[in-house]
Structure formats: structure tokens, C-alpha cells
């Protein structure tokens, strides 16, 4: 089994602690000049998101978590699982609702997502930073109003609701930033 020594510690490194996968958020080397050195780390539980502190004696080895970040194509949702495909192997992975969470609203078939695998199972799914989605419903805005800066809610084809300018109509294709959840522009096709 793979292990990391504390001198390999850096943020982003994935560790297995008490049987749970963690990612190092912060690593601080602490050493009394005449004594035992420690690595004090903040780690984030990759399943729950909870951040905890741990101290290790410097030089200690810690088990690596079998966590891998890969890019996969989103295929479909069968109501229970979200299905993704590895582009090289065509292998399919089913991600439970919990792994996708709130990000489900940005997932459009064929889009490439960042899928984090833990022991080969999807642990979390990150949509592309920008997606282009069609407006499935929005109230008609005022004609010609392009400058007042007002906004209105629009429901997109994946179910996401974003605030859009008043001039946006149903059926239009929009570019949206998934990190902020904000409308960016009309998509040019």
C-alpha cells in the first residue's frame, strides 16, 4: 500500500486517516530547536467536507488514500445514479446522488466533468467551470430593454435557475459560470 512521509506533505495530498479519505489543506512544520519535530496539518474529509487538525511526528509515514482525479464525460441520470464514462477506457462509473450533490443542476450530457474517484468509486463530481445551457422557461422581459440592468430568474434545461438580464428569451442558449452560478453571456453558436 502506498504511503507518504511527512516530508512529502503539501496541500492537496490525499491521506487515509481512520479509514476515511482526507485532503491536506495546510501543512505546518513545527520543531523545537532541540526537540522532536512535528507536522501539524489541517485536513478536509473528502466525504463530509469537514476540516480537522492532526499532528504527526516528522518522518512518520501515513497511508495514502486511493483517490484519483479524472476527467469523464457525463452520460445520463437514471433517477438514482449519475453515469460517467472514462474517455480512454470507455469504462462507466455510477455516481450516487451524494457524490454529485448540488452540482447535478449543471450536468449536461456529453459535458466533461472532473470526477474524483476513491477506491475506484466516484466520490465527488465537479462540473466544467463554464457550461452552455438552453433556457427552458423564463417570463417575457420588456422588449428593447437592454440597458436598465434589471434581471429575472430563468430555468435552464438541466433545472438550474439563474438570474438573467430582462432581454433573455425562452429557447436562447446561455453561457453560465458554474462556480458562481451566474449568467455570463449569450452563447455564440
Amino acid at each position, binding site marked *: 500500500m502506498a504511503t507518504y512521509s511527512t516530508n512529502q506533505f503539501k496541500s492537496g495530498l490525499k491521506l487515509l486517516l481512520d479509514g476515511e479519505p482526507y485532503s491536506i489543506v495546510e501543512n505546518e512544520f513545527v520543531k523545537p530547536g532541540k526537540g522532536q519535530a512535528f507536522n501539524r496539518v489541517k485536513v478536509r474529509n473528502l466525504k463530509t467536507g469537514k476540516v480537522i487538525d492532526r*499532528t504527526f511526528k516528522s518522518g512518520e509515514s501515513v497511508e495514502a488514500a486511493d483517490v484519483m482525479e479524472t476527467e469523464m464525460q457525463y452520460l445520463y441520470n437514471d433517477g438514482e445514479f449519475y453515469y460517467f464514462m472514462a474517455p480512454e477506457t470507455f469504462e462507466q462509473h455510477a455516481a450516487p446522488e451524494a457524490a454529485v450533490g448540488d452540482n447535478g443542476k449543471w450536468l449536461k450530457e456529453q459535458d466533461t466533468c472532473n470526477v474524483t474517484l476513491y477506491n475506484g468509486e466516484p466520490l465527488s463530481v465537479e462540473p466544467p467551470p463554464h457550461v452552455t445551457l438552453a433556457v427552458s422557461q423564463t417570463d417575457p422581459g420588456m422588449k428593447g430593454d437592454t440597458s436598465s440592468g434589471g434581471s429575472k430568474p430563468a430555468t435552464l434545461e438541466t433545472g438550474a435557475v439563474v438570474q438573467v438580464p430582462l432581454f433573455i428569451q425562452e429557447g436562447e442558449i446561455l453561457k453560465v459560470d458554474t462556480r458562481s452560478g451566474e449568467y455570463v453571456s449569450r452563447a455564440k453558436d
Partner: protein
Amino acid sequence: MVAGADWRPSASLQALRQRAGWRARLRRFFDQRGVIEVDTPLLAATGVTDPAIDCLQESASGYWLQSSPEYAMKRLIAAGLGDCYQITPAFRAGELGRWHNPEFTLLEWYRLGYSADDLMDELTALTDCLLGPAPIRRYTYQAAFEAAGLPDPLTASIDQLTAAARTRPAACPLPSGTDHRVLLDWLFSQVVAPQLPVRCFVTHYPADQAVLARLDPADSRLAERFELFIGGVEMANGFRELTDARALRERFEADQAVRRARGQPVMAIDERLLAAMTAGMPDCAGVAVGLDRMFARAAGAESIAEVIAFPWTRA
């Protein structure tokens, strides 16, 4: 960081100019007090036996990059040079972090006939000179534990110390293989140091942490060793120096036994230092100051990389 931009210093140019000013100020400080500046080798035939320090070795000669100018300066003192100071690079393998760089700058000085208290007074004056004046509280190691609500480090059992460690609010699980000494280091660095007053001396370390300090003639459980902490970070380590060659050899041999037991490389004993001490070393006190840390404090910086031109990752 932009790729390729790491040719630039990590410290601001302003910090580097300040650094030159602080060094000049230190030289004036010692000049005014009649303490002379010395140079000792960076590469030496022996390293140190201290199990807490891993020396770097120069592969062609087999010589060791010095981890502190201490031994060589003591040889100068035994030779009769008198009060002296040195500002020098020093090297310790594997020490890398916010307050550590494998190559760092030490200020070390020795005063003949000084007690630990006298030297703490002088270090206070030097700290005032670099950081501006402020009072420095003095706690014994024992009192610092007590102030942090921990058991007496001199008498508590491993079980009592472990129990105290487990109930700390910030408690991280204790590292594995925790023996008495590691527990004290853990409690000190995780619980005691962060709660110390902004500027503070910790004095009278337990005898098993004496390193090269004389044991307290009034209580042999204690060593005449002190450390300066600023903002919870260790800045300086000082001793009323051990001058007994036989006792020093015993400590070196004990270090070697610890190294052997832990599977660390066993370092040769510096026989030249022992010979100097056998010839006779005057009663003195000495202290080493982590200058990069001190300069970081003076600059209001949060890491030594802000006052070092090219730290390890850019060196």
C-alpha cells in the same frame, strides 16, 4: 506564481534593504559592548550528535555543513579569545516550513563570566534594539506548563501527560510512539508556546533537555538553559555553558545511544571540542538567535520567506 517567475526574491526589496540595516545595527550593538566578531568554518570534519538535528554532508570531502557555530566558537573561547559573536549561515537537513529553512542565519554570542540572567538581560537589550522596546516576561519551563493548565512536567507520569494532551480543546490525536520526551515537546509546541506572552523567556528546562547547558547547582533536575519566544515562535536558545569535558562526553555518548536506538546515523564526537574543554574553558554563557525569524518579527512578516532573498524552493 507565474511559471518562471521564481528567479525573483521571495522577500520584497524593501525587506532586503531593512535586513541590511538590521545587520548593521547588530554589529554596532556588539561593537559598543566590546564583543568582537569572529568567523568559523562552515564545513567541519564532525557534525553534531544531537538526535534532534540532522546535519548536511558535503559529499566530496565528507565534511559536514555546520548546524551551529557553537563548537568552534567554544574552541576560540577556550583558546582565550574572550567575548565574541558571529553572524553566520547554518544548515539543518529537512527543516522546511513557515519558520524553517534548511539554510538559515544564526547570530551567536558568548559572554565570559555571565550568568543566564545576565545574558537574558543583554538579549532583551538586543531585542529592544531590533523590535523596539517591550517588557519580556520570564517563566520557568515548569511555570509555563502550569500557566497553560498542564501537569507539572518534572513530576507528571506519561499517563497524566497523555490524559492532559487528550483533553485540550485544540487536541489533535497524539502522534504514535509518544515517549515522555516527545509528549513534553508535543505539549510545549502545541499548547504551551501558543499561550505564552508576546515576548517571553522560558528558563530552567528539564535536565534531559539540557543539551550543552550546565545543570542548576541548586536543583539538578533543571538545566541553566533559556529560550526566547516572540509571538509563540522560538527565537533564541541560550545556556550557562557546561564547561566540564567529562560531563560533555557523557552527553555526547547518550546522544549516540539515542541515535543508535532510533536507527539514525550515529555521528562522530567532536574530539577537538572535548580537547578544548579539557584544556579549560572559562565560565561563560552563550546564546544563538534565529536571525531570519527575528527579522521576520521586525518586519511584521508571517514567514521567514518574506525576509530571505532566496529560500530553499528558489535557492
